[in-house]
């Protein structure tokens, strides 16, 4: 047999392992800091760059894209070369992928604390970074497909299918969800508004979980689990069904993040049905993994890598059973906006992604350095402390979630809300938040122990930058083999580009069926006459709301439950959000919903509340925003923002930004200052950020209120009034 000699590139794998460990420690630590801020609000050190609102996206991005992202690349770059019997297609693209990805992470770590954010969950990075992500992702995809095309193995193993699905789908999700019109170097407005933006965002958000946190790791499971157990996967047939079932169903399930919201009912129903069906392929995959260990459970007792793997698969099974349960509307009515969701995602993140990544690291580092793990005892110690940490995280958060949901819905026998003050329901959770922080601390201690163990392992061995091997090239095609079905799955596995196209079609069907009708029927959406675009001052106030990450704790979506309408007011209508670029419905309530906040309190209340929330709400866990009282409002940005909003569809009159907008802004700011004086706040300059934020908060939800009177009436310009009429 004619053998070809070639070398696997281990340098790129090592680079990603180092990045995985470092970013993991950073991401976990950021999570612990913000977890502590929920019972110790002063922990932002009264700095605007370290508030919960700004650091929460930093934590989620660091864990998802930095820790799991680098872990995914680490595993793929190692396994792909060996499954294809080929070196990576291009070393240049490999290193472009590595350094580009690290640069993106650093950019995120700088811009998010600065408040440069789109506010769309897991897609917070602004447009220049979005473009960089697309470029780096294309480099990765070309490298992936190029390697597959140059393979010396005739058939494509199932792990690689999962890699292909990941590469294609993440590209589609990222591009579609990130479409925006920039108004400056680091600020843009989503081209979608309100309910459409919400659907696109959660189509993205859900599938970021599916195709960034799940499918690549399932592929890695199909490679690393057989390696570690030294036995083939339990059922290769089941893996085929697992793959097609999973990628086809996953893409439809996004609307389950928007149950009981203003999203159309048919889209919600589709989300529910497909979410429940997801149990089948998810559990098929999990059982395929666990059953691979049939007859090898003795190894699990001895090998810490397998221990981590088994817990990872178990956590995957729990999270993928719980996810569909949470997608049932009656369950969701209790769980949504509570810490139950936080517990759910952390079962997946800490258990599935975290433990699986630790498992890969313990397996890879000794092999890259041609040695044994420095201390199995320490690895076992890491396993138990991380498991304990996960328990201490998850159990209190489940308890907190259910407590929160029940308290929100509790009525007295006289049919009044039992806990009308939202703060009561928050203070009830403080002990659980403390326990959660203990769990997070244990998990982080374990991660530091792992880093030390891996560092000592590397020090004790010799790094093998390239592994030289031999393999036979793929035989030239000599026509279809006799007796074989030329169109069967075997044939398909030999056609990577066709396979890629079919995968793309599978994921596009779900997205298209759900999203396109939302646009086709746009002209039929009856807008609400009184709903008008935000005034210039409110636009700037809304941008401050976005900058500070208020959406991380406050929803703007009142569900049609009596418990919510009693507490907040009229339930939210889709027509109210047609000028919301982006939507700010939120996904968690650590504070109350703000959809009907306008007119609820006087302007002076908001002023004092932002200065120190504990002045107006004793015991509040909200951080102080005292810098808003002194920082000057950036009115120079107004013309570009009005113009950008017009481009995305907000009907500001032509030329509005050339004078009229500034005049409107000054008039409304003076009105807010006058209102503040009535409330004994006499020293508030009209050109500070707090004025714009108050204007925005006082506008929230007022457009459809039956009673027009409010403590802080938002003056509308004549130009804006005509806008409303044109939309009837």
């Amino acid at each position, binding site marked *: 047999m004619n053998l070809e000699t070639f070398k696997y590139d281990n340098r790129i794998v090592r680079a990603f392992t180092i990045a995985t460990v470092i970013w993991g420690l950073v991401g976990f630590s950021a999570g612990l800091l913000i977890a502590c801020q929920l019972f110790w609000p002063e922990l932002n050190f009264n700095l605007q760059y370290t508030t919960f609102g700004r650091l929460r996206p930093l934590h989620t991005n660091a864990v998802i894209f930095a820790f799991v992202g680098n872990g995914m690349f680490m595993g793929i770059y190692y396994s792909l070369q060996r499954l294809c019997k080929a070196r990576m297609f291009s070393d240049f693209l490999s290193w472009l992928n590595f350094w580009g990805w690290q640069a993106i992470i650093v950019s995120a770590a700088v811009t998010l604390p600065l408040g440069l954010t789109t506010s769309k969950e897991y897609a917070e990075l602004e447009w220049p970074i979005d473009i960089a992500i697309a470029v780096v992702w294309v480099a990765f995809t070309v490298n992936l497909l190029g390697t597959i095309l140059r393979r010396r193995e005739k058939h494509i193993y199932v792990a690689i299918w999962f890699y292909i699905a990941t590469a294609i789908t993440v590209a589609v999700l990222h591009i579609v969800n990130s479409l925006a019109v920039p108004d400056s170097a680091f600020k843009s407005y989503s081209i979608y508004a309100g309910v459409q933006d919400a659907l696109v965002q959660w189509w993205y958000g859900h599938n970021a979980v599916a195709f960034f946190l799940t499918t690549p790791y399932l592929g890695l499971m199909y490679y690393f689990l057989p390696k570690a157990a030294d036995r*083939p996967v339990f059922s290769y047939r089941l893996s085929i069904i697992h793959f097609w079932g999973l990628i086809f169903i996953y893409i439809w399930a996004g609307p389950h993040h928007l149950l009981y919201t203003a999203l159309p009912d048919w889209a919600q129903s589709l989300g529910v049905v497909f979410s429940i069906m997801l149990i089948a392929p998810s559990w098929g995959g999990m059982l395929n993994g666990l059953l691979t260990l049939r007859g090898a459970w003795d190894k699990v007792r001895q090998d810490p890598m397998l221990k981590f793997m088994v817990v990872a698969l178990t956590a995957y099974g729990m999270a993928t059973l719980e996810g569909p349960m949470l997608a049932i509307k009656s369950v969701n009515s209790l769980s949504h906006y509570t810490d139950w969701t936080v517990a759910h995602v952390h079962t997946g993140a800490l258990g599935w992604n975290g433990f699986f990544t630790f498992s890969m690291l313990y397996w890879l580092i000794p092999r890259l350095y041609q040695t044994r793990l420095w201390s199995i005892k320490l690895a076992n110690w890491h396993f138990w402390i991380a498991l304990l940490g996960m328990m201490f995280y998850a159990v209190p958060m489940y308890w907190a979630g259910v407590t929160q949901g029940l308290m929100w819905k509790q009525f007295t026998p006289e049919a009044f809300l039992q806990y009308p003050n939202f703060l009561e329901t928050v203070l009830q959770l403080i002990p659980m938040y403390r326990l959660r922080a203990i769990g997070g601390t244990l998990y982080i201690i374990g991660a530091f122990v792992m880093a030390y163990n891996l560092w000592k392992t590397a020090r004790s061995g010799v790094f093998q930058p390239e592994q030289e091997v031999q393999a036979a090239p793929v035989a030239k095609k000599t026509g279809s083999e006799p007796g074989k079905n030329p169109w069967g799955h075997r044939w398909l596995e030999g056609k990577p580009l066709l396979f890629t196209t079919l995968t793309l079609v599978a994921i596009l069907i779900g997205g298209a069926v759900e999203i396109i009708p939302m646009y086709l029927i746009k002209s039929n959406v009856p807008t609400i006459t009184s709903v008008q675009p935000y005034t210039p001052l409110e636009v700037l106030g809304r941008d401050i709301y976005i900058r500070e990450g208020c959406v991380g704790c406050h929803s703007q979506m009142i569900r049609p439950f009596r418990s919510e309408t009693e507490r907040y007011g009229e339930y939210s*209508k889709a027509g109210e959000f047609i000028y919301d670029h982006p939507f700010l419905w939120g996904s968690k309530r650590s504070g109350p919903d703000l959809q009907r906040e306008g007119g609820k309190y006087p302007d002076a209340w908001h002023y004092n509340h932002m200065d120190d929330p504990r002045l107006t709400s004793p015991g509040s866990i909200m951080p102080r925003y005292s810098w808003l009282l002194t920082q000057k409002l950036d009115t120079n940005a107004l013309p570009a923002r009005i113009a950008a909003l017009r481009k995305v569809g907000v009907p500001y009159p032509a030329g509005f930004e050339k004078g009229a907008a500034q005049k409107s802004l000054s008039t409304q700011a003076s009105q807010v200052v006058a209102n503040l004086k009535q409330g004994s706040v006499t020293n508030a300059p009209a050109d500070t950020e707090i004025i714009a934020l108050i204007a925005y908060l006082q506008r929230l939800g007022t457009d459809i209120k039956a009673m027009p009177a409010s403590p802080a009436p938002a003056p509308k310009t004549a130009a804006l009034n005509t806008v409303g009429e044109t939309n009837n």
Partner: protein
Amino acid sequence: MIQNVLRDIGGIGLYGVISVCLFFLVFSVAVIRACLLKKSFVTAMSVLPLDDGQPVDRQKGVAHHE
């Protein structure tokens, strides 16, 4: 709420039915194709991760992981 927005969309109820039918079609095809695979092929594919390629002889001293 949907009634406020989309009451005039014709046949919207069919969306769910069509979607589920599509899924069962894809799922059925995947199951049938998986079942029709030859045992020898399935066995060969399932052991692929265990084969990293043949180590080169001149690399004496280099550990072979499998």
